[in-house]
């Protein structure tokens, strides 16, 4: 497996009162293509911060992140977000005044990646693949349930044909059945499409399904074990 995302000596912290609190301490790790990773850790350990850095939502305070061998500074943060990764948020973060179909279509117009000519049809098929039928796809996203919104968010992440998918507690607001379904989709993306999927989670159940379980401890990523077989 080739390295897709490489973290080199990342440092991150903030001032808490009179003390500097270290979140990431000279953290280094290589994420491979076609692998499903989960990152575990207690609240406040810096999981979401790490995901934000990998998603280029903010800049590192030290160290380098490379995608396909190029640093994010060289690629450009906006370009990286647009063409190389997709992120699924715990709070879905859909554009509220667009319907589900438009939300997916929106990122397809933003990315510069090669996509099918019929973007609208592709977006609809993608939504249907996640159980969002056309009648629901044309409704304002605020009228969809949490699970449906998360599926729209995942469809949006997949629509741009990127090699890296990041997700922050994507199953946190979902029922068990939907949780399993979504984890299965992530797993299948890694296994069959060569996508690198990195999920931040609290859930041991989700972690068990991953190829690599990582724990963020004392500002460093520690590999726990190889991922278990997902039977879902």
């Amino acid at each position, binding site marked *: 497996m080739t390295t897709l995302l490489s973290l080199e000596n990342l440092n991150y912290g903030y001032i808490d009162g009179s003390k500097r609190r270290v979140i990431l301490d000279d953290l280094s790790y290589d994420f491979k293509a076609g692998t499903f990773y989960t990152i575990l850790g207690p609240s406040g350990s810096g999981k979401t911060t790490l995901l934000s850095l990998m*998603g280029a939502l903010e800049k590192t305070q030290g160290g380098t992140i490379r995608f396909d061998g190029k640093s994010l500074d060289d690629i450009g943060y906006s370009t990286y977000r*647009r063409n190389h990764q997709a992120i699924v948020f715990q709070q879905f*973060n859909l*554009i509220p005044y667009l319907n589900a179909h438009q939300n997916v279509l929106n990122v397809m117009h933003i990315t510069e990646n090669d996509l099918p000519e019929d973007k609208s049809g592709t977006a609809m098929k993608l939504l249907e693949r996640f159980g969002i039928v056309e009648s629901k796809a044309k409704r304002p996203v605020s009228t969809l349930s949490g699970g449906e919104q998360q599926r729209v968010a995942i469809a949006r992440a997949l629509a741009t044909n990127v090699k890296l998918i990041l997700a922050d507690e994507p199953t946190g607001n979902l029922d068990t059945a939907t949780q399993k379904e979504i984890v299965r989709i992530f797993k299948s993306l890694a296994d069959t499409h060569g996508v690198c999927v990195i999920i931040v989670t609290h859930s041991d159940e989700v972690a068990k399904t991953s190829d690599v379980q990582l724990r963020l401890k004392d500002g460093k990523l520690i590999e726990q074990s190889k991922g278990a077989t997902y039977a879902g």
Partner: protein
Amino acid sequence: MYFLTRAVAYLKKQKSKTILLSVLFFLIANIVLAGLSIQKATETATVLTRQEIGADVVYTVNSSQLNTDYRNGLIDATVDKTTLPGIPLVSNANLLLNSEYVSSVDYVASYEATSETLTPYTVTVTATTSTSSSGGSKIILGTYEDNGDISFRTFSRPEPSDFSDELAVLAEGRFATQDEIDQGAPVVLIEQTLADLNGWIVGDTMTVYPTTDGYEQVAMTYEIIGIYTTQEVVDDRTLSSTPSSLLAQNRLYTPFNTLVTMGLSTEEIDQIILSKAVITLDDPIHVTDYMAAIEGLIPLTYGTIDANDDVYETLAGPIETLGDLSSVMVWIVVIAGALILSLITALTINQRKNEIGILLAIGESKAKIVTQFIVETVLIAVMAFTLSVFSGIQIGQTISTQTLDVFLTPEPTVETVVPQGKGSKVTVPTETIDAPEVDVKLDPLVLIQFFGAGLLVAMISVAIPALYVTRFNPKQILTNNG
């Protein structure tokens, strides 16, 4: 270009915000347009006022200066009036014609004549009717000798000034042609009363002896080409001292060049003192420029050149004040409106921080995010501005009409006094200058400027807060608004 779809989707989804912003834009645009309309109306009214007053510039004797200097003994009856500086000699008047703005000129001079055959009009209250034909009279208006039965008043354009000023109205026949005027053809327009008294009709001829200084009296035969009725009214007090030859009924209009026909040389004609030279300009708008151009050409000690400036100032002064007020109003509204719009759009953008964070997180460029917000505001602004063009101009029209009415009431009037010699005066019916009827039509260029300025204000008021928000990274925005 999907940001356009997002912009339209936002406007549709956020109907109440869209409507509120539209109403705000509409109100501000209406006030600005009303102000601009009033400004435009005042500009138009100023021009119309000038047009209403006319494009005539009158060069005449400065009677008050002449009388003052007489009283003070600076000049006396023996002085050769042609030597007085600025007196309206033909040679002086000719100096005023060398301008691109001059369209035509009417040389009004007067001279008297006697006749053995005609019966002049007389009135019972006066005993001044005379048929004396003593020589030595001068062709000088305002210094008549009482030595004629009738008087001639000259003109040098087809419709004499008295007719265009409605002091006389052509009842029958025609005016002289320009050819007849240029050739000095002995044609006359006579007053209805005199025509009736002598049984003359159009086409008849009459023979008279003009009384010109230093010249042998020659019989001149004139063809009557038109009969007019005078509009002048002489009050009884004045009438008693008015020689019959100076009564309007005994006035005949004949081309100025008949003086050449009579045998006067060019040099002699140059020395004729005109009662007035009416110089008509090509456009009333050019009056100010013309007056500036001729300034200093003639030392105007005993002459005046008047373009009805007093009347114009009386009428145009309040209109210009209104224009200045509306200009101040427009600026206040533009500045206040820009501030209000900026604050409202800034607040709106502030509420959309989370959306900005999401768009940045999924890779949208800052420029397109800002452009989307600008497009949304511009769509609202264009809709509101377009509607306001109709209502704003209507409001402006109403305010302009009402305000101009207030400013211009009572309507100013101009009293025209015709000097008639020997200190007598004949007052003609008062001429009324109507307040101009103003139709507010905004120049397309002004509308384009209005649209441009409005949209610019809208764009800036959106772009600044949007750029302010997009300078943060997506994590900061989403964390702070999540």
